[in-house]
């Protein structure tokens, strides 16, 4: 029975043609990564420094691949079964919760194993160059990758058991991955060496990141490190955290694999209009825009598709948007005020760096989930067919959809404007930098939105559209950072600068003069890249929409 479940979970996805393409692409990518840095002269470094440099790069590439591609599988595993109705059949069978859970867990781990197996020839090539120990270096890196896969598989399955749709599961899982892998590095990067509670907190948080664990294994500087050494056993702490996470998430998910998973009310709730006067007054106090209040008709001057898009998103409704904007505004102003008032002894660059990191993370997290499903959600729920039977033109539909995605992004950006203004006021010499950072962020938002929308229109499933958009966008933004990590050795300054020109995060960092990025001149090359990619995306999306809308 267990074997049957495993076969269904693993073999069925492997039958798809796109999985074969995916495997070949992975093997090619890893091969190219090694081939690009393979020694071409007759000299061999006895200490194996060259092979260690290459292996470091390769292991970060492998980790990035795992973090970008893998979470989609556990995130959709349970929710897609729930949506298609097969989970009811499974729960109605003699298979217990633990067998269903472990069937799924082993299946997604097998997929992770497949991703890792694709990298074995490249790892073998690194090993054959000498200077690498099989059990101390290569073995430990693969053990770490297995732990990461296990942890995110357990978290993904837990998220999937709560999610109401595959796309919301993917969104939340990628949010958790981004938060635990990257954002946990932020506090350490800013406060290392300062001493005090914040530095300790930063050090502890850093141990939750698989990237920090990998850096400690491969002997590389951690991302954002400023050359300071620490004595912390990052790998040990990460192992404990990862196993703890896995156990808690697994027990939690198994406890949900019963009637509870279906026992969710979709009641509309009491409408505020039907409440007593005092009830309405209290809701008015808590909500600027009350989601339970009957909304008015769509005003004639507004694009109905734009309004529809806002109303269809659970977190796109105005009250959520206002909350998000308010949080951003309060945080940015609070940070700037704290520095001005002398509460913290932080430089303006540090404050700017924190704000840039937070905003780019927010854009990268929000943009694909807003823009990628714009068309795919219509294809999936048969809404496109209905829209085509209305007199609305394709152009009007697309305009409404794109506006519905760009407005929240711009609102989030505008929310931090007061912080930047105060920063420019404190340090007048930074006005040009602040202006350029704002332009960087605005272009990043437009680029992320248009590229995600263009990628998403090729998919008829929302989950696939969002996952692909996340993977591509994160690749564009984060993979150049791998090259940056290999700056000076094995990559030269020009190579790193060229690679960083593609990353909007790196461009914003270089503008704000973040340590490690101050020597790279990425503007205007990065703006040209994002501008051209945005224009291409802006052409691709309507062209595809016209193609699929043309009567056959």
């Amino acid at each position, binding site marked *: 029975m267990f074997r049957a479940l495993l076969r269904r979970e693993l073999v069925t996805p492997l039958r798809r043609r796109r999985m074969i393409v995916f495997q070949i692409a992975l093997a090619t990518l890893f091969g190219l990564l090694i081939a690009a840095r393979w020694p071409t002269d007759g000299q061999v470094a006895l200490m194996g420094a060259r092979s260690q440099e290459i292996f470091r790069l390769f292991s970060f590439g492998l980790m990035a691949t795992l973090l970008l591609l893998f979470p989609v599988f556990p995130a959709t595993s349970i929710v897609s079964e729930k949506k298609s109705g097969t989970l009811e059949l499974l729960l109605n069978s003699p298979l217990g919760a633990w067998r269903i859970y472990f069937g799924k867990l082993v299946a997604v781990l097998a997929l992770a194993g497949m991703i890792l197996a694709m990298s074995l020839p490249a790892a073998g090539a690194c090993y054959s160059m000498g200077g690498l120990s099989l059990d101390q270096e290569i073995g430990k890196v693969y053990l770490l990758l297995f732990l990461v896969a296990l942890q995110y598989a357990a978290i993904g399955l837990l998220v999937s058991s709560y999610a109401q*749709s595959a796309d919301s599961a993917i969104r939340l899982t990628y949010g958790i991955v981004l938060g635990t892998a990257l954002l946990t590095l932020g506090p350490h990067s800013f406060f290392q060496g300062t001493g005090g509670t914040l530095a300790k907190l930063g050090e502890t948080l850093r141990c939750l990141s698989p990237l920090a664990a990998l850096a400690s294994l491969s002997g590389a500087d951690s991302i954002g490190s400023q050359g300071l050494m620490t004595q912390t056993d990052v790998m040990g702490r990460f192992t404990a955290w990862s196993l703890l996470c896995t156990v808690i998430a697994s027990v939690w998910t198994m406890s949900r694999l019963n009637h509870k998973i279906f026992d969710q009310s*979709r*009641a*509309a709730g009491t*409408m505020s209009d039907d409440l007593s006067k005092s009830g309405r007054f209290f809701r008015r106090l808590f909500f600027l825009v009350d989601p339970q209040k*009957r*909304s008015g*008709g*769509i*005003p*004639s001057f507004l694009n*109905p*598709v734009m*309004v*529809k898009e806002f*109303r*269809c*998103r*659970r977190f796109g*409704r105005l009250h959520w948007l206002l909350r998000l904007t308010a949080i951003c505004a309060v945080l940015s102003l609070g940070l700037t005020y704290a520095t001005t008032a002398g509460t913290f002894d932080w430089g303006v660059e540090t404050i700017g760096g924190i704000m840039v990191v937070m905003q780019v993370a927010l854009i990268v997290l929000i943009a694909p989930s807003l823009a990628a499903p714009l068309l795919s959600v219509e294809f999936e*729920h*048969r*809404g496109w*067919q*209905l*829209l*085509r*039977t*209305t*007199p*609305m033109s394709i152009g009007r539909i697309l305009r409404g959809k794109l506006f519905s995605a760009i407005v929240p992004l711009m609102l989030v950006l505008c929310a931090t404007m007061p912080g930047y203004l105060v920063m420019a006021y404190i340090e007048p010499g930074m006005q040009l930098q602040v202006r350029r950072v704002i332009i960087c962020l605005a272009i990043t938002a437009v680029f992320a939105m248009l590229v995600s929308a263009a990628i998403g229109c090729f998919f008829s499933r929302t989950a696939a559209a969002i996952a692909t958009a996340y993977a591509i966008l994160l690749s564009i933004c984060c993979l150049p950072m791998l090259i940056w990590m290999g700056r000076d050795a094995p990559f030269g300054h020009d190579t790193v600068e060229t690679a960083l020109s593609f990353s909007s995060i790196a461009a914003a960092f270089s503008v704000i003069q973040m340590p490690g990025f101050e020597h790279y001149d990425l503007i205007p090359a990065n703006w040209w890249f994002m501008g051209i990619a945005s224009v291409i995306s802006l052409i691709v999306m309507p062209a595809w929409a016209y193609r699929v809308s043309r*009567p*056959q």
Partner: protein
Amino acid sequence: MNVTALPVENETPASTGEPPVLDLQNLTKRYGSFTALDDLSLTLNAGQILGLIGPNGAGKTTTIKILVGLIRPTSGSAKIAGVDCVQDAMQVKRLVGYMPDKFGAYDNMRVREYLDFFGAAFDMPSDQRAKRVPEVMELTGTEYMKDRFVESLSHGMQQRVGLARTLLHDPKVLILDEPVNGLDPQARIEMRDLLLELAKQGKTLLVTSHILPELARICQQVAILTNGVLRAHGTVEDIGHQVSQRRTLEVHLGTAKHVAAAAKIIRKSVEPEAEVVESPTEATVRFRTAQSEENLGKILRRLVKVGVFVTQYREVQTDLEEAFMSFTQNQSSIAEPASDELESDGVTTDV
């Protein structure tokens, strides 16, 4: 394709002399070598309900999609209220209310918001929508669910909301794909009454359904499609007659003892291949035959003459379900012998 088949009436049975609201002429749709729709010609007058029936893959959805401008015919023409569905697709969209077989729900949208959105999509001004949305909700019985999320509605409820959405812009023609699918008996009766009411208001309806008794009750006309070919078109009674070249007759007997004797006489009197079914428990004999009225009279006389106690001797009316089964199960075998018989009567139709 030139097939001799049962008579297909391209003219509306109850033709009033007014131009038809729905006018399909020689409509054909091919995908490579596969013909989804073959030379379909149909007309329908205002205020009439046409039931389009056929097995899966018969060409019903293709016909509907051509009418609403989602696909283009390979040849032929389709007009709604004189407007060409291909040349003037945008104008046709305002004339037609289309309800597909799948609902098309949007997440996190309440029923009233959903209807308001589609009203706005049809360029209805907001004040007009504010009046029209409650009107259609009242008409379709969806008022009580106005604050509920559309994706949380049951299938039957979604069908009603779908119909409300279809009626929003007050279209002349309603094209409804499986409107009673998933409805409970009470809701089905209400939907039937609603469709009849809409027809009374002058709307022209094209309805597909697999629940044939429902169609038989509401449709003035029925068209049967198989493999993209129109096999029959007319009123339910006409279609019944087209099928009943072989009629079904039932003999009720006063005693079960006479069943075997009656069946023996009937078998001798009808065609050798005719089906004769005895039912001793019900004391009846049922048979299908192509015998004339005169011969049927002779059979009754023979039964009475030998002393069979006959209490009833009657023809069983062919219902739509039976007609549909006849056309779909034996489309080729029906067409050929029937054509011989029809040709002898001088009736041959190109389909």
